[in-house]
Structure formats: C-alpha cells, structure tokens
C-alpha cells in the first residue's frame, strides 16, 4: 500500500468552553485528522501527540479515548444491523461512565432528548443507522452526543445533507451540548451551520496544514471568496 503523508505539522488546542471550526477544500485532510485522532486503522500517526486534559492518549484504543471524554461524529456513520438505537446508547453510556444506570430512568432521559431533536419515539427501536436517511443519521449522532456527554467533541460534517429545519434542530442540539466545560470542533464546508453554532475560532486547512486561523469572520470570507487564495 502507498504511504502518503496527509497531515503535516498541525497543532490545535481546544479548551473547554471553546468552539473551533475547521474549514477547507475537499481532500485537505479534515476527516483524516478527525479519524486519526480516534485511531482509525487506515492511518498511522508517525509523529506528534494527542493530549486530553494533559494526558497523552495518542496510542490508546478508541474506547479508552471515549472514556477520556472524547467523541467523534463520523462523516459517514456505519450501519449496525441488529442493534437498536436504544440498546446501543444504553450500553455505550454505561461503558463510558462505568456506571450501570436504572434502564428505565435512562429511557426517560432518552425519550426527552429524542423529543428535543424532534425524533419519533419509535426511532429508539430501529437498528442503528440501518436504512436511516441522511438527516436521521445526523440526528442520531446528536442524540449520542447529548446522552454520552463527552468533554470534547469533533463533529465531522454533521451539517451535510440537512434541510433548513433539520439543520436548526441539529444546531440546537449542538448548542445544548456546548457549555463552558465542553470543547467543540466542527468540521464543515459551509458557513451555514456556523450561523447557528457560532465558533470562537475558524481554521482554514489546506493540504494537511492549518494555513490561517481567525474569528468567525473568516468563515464569511471563505463563503464569499472560496479557498483558491490559500
């Protein structure tokens, strides 16, 4: 297999309470960055470190990273046939917190969060992502975010393929997750989501590097002028 360097010399610090947006053209390495942080077997980290709350988690397995408070919403969420949304979430939350909650109490919380995301209660009994529409998959990701309550979340194109109403619901969910104790990284192509979830920092990523960082006005500039000048 060809070995290709995709991300090079990238450094990013996300503090609790901050929202960072990473924007960049197709193939700039945004998703690779997110997947490599979580240990996707396709990628090898040759140099550098991933620190969570000052602890080195570079070589930890994805479940350990989740226990350290990290969360990734993948651009393409896998379909898991035979595992219901409710079952998956209950087991995932129990594993992440290490605490076996009253399943009925958990289900009340699940129902409340689903209502907030305008999801039909029957959704809980469907197999995870199996046959979900694009919008349903993204909502399912936000449902996981709100129930798993990580400290740091990376959302990879969670806004893609959403209509205006669904985008607002997803944005509302992200804003509900975000507090002064949680750090958020949004990977996106468009300024659209950033109008609802306002970032503190915007980073432009091109060819595996962050070429420019700025405030939310940078996203507007990209929308007007594109990435060609980078």
């Amino acid at each position, binding site marked *: 297999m060809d070995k290709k360097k995709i991300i090079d010399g990238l450094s990013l610090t996300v503090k609790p309470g901050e929202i960072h947006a990473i924007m960049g053209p197709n193939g700039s390495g945004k998703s690779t960055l997110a997947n490599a942080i979580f240990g996707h077997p396709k990628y090898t980290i040759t140099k550098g470190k991933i620190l969570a709350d000052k602890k080195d988690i570079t070589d930890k397995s994805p479940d350990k990273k989740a226990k350290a408070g990290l969360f990734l919403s993948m651009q393409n969420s896998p379909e898991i046939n035979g595992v219901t949304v409710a079952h998956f979430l209950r087991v995932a939350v129990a594993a992440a917190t290490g605490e076996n909650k*009253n399943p009925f109490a958990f289900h009340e919380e699940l129902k409340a969060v689903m209502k907030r995301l305008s999801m039909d209660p029957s959704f809980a*009994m469907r197999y995870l992502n199996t046959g979900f529409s694009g919008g349903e998959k993204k909502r399912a990701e936000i449902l996981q975010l709100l129930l798993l309550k990580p400290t740091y979340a990376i959302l990879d194109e969670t806004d893609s393929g959403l209509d205006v109403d669904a985008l607002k619901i997803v944005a509302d969910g992200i804003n509900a997750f975000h507090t002064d104790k949680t750090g958020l990284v949004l990977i996106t192509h468009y300024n659209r989501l950033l109008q609802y979830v306002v970032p503190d920092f915007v980073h432009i990523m091109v060819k595996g590097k962050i070429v420019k960082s700025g405030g939310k006005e940078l996203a507007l500039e990209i929308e007007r002028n594109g990435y060609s000048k980078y």
Partner: protein
Amino acid sequence: MTDALYHELILDLNRHPLNKRELKDFDFRQREHNPLCGDAVEIFIKYSGNKITDISWQGEGCAISTASASMLTDYLKNKNKSEIKKINQSKVLDLLGLKEINPARLRCALLPLKCLCP
C-alpha cells in the same frame, strides 16, 4: 415506547440488578417467597427518622421478580416512609412499564411488594 423495549429493559435488569445486596445495618427486613415457582425475595430498609436512607434486596427469582425488586427499591430510595403504603399493584406494573401481565407472572411482579406489605 413499544413492548419490545420493555422486555429489553426487564432483561437488562435481570442481568444487572439494582440494589441487590444485603444490608448489615437495617431497621426493617422481610422475606417472602412464591411457593408456586420458587422465587424468593428479601427486602432490607434503613431509616433515618421517616426517610428511607438505604434500601436493598436479596433473593433468587425470575426476570420479572428481579426487575420488580430492582425498580421498587430504586423508586423508594431517599423517599419518605409514608410512600411505601402508597404502592399498589398498578404502581408496580407502572414501574416495569407493563400495562398487563398474565396472572401467574403477576405474582412474580408483586412478590417484592409483598415484602413491604406482608
């Protein structure tokens, strides 16, 4: 919520029961059993004044009686003593998310309640 989900939650409580331990320091202790199926449940309660500060159970039984004992003890934890008297058959079924249950299994569901109101 659908019935399938309730079944899943009851089975989950059967695998991971709540409050299933013996209390060494208790103010109330009552054991009941169902001679028809062999289920046995014993409930322990520790009071502080009128408040239920700790409640647990022990025993061997089917998924329904295990789930019922788990939910009932979890529900009463940190509640006032007077709440115990308010629990009836429909409250127990409500805690288990069941609208109806066949009469033989009803005995299993109500066995833990029998400990509280012998």
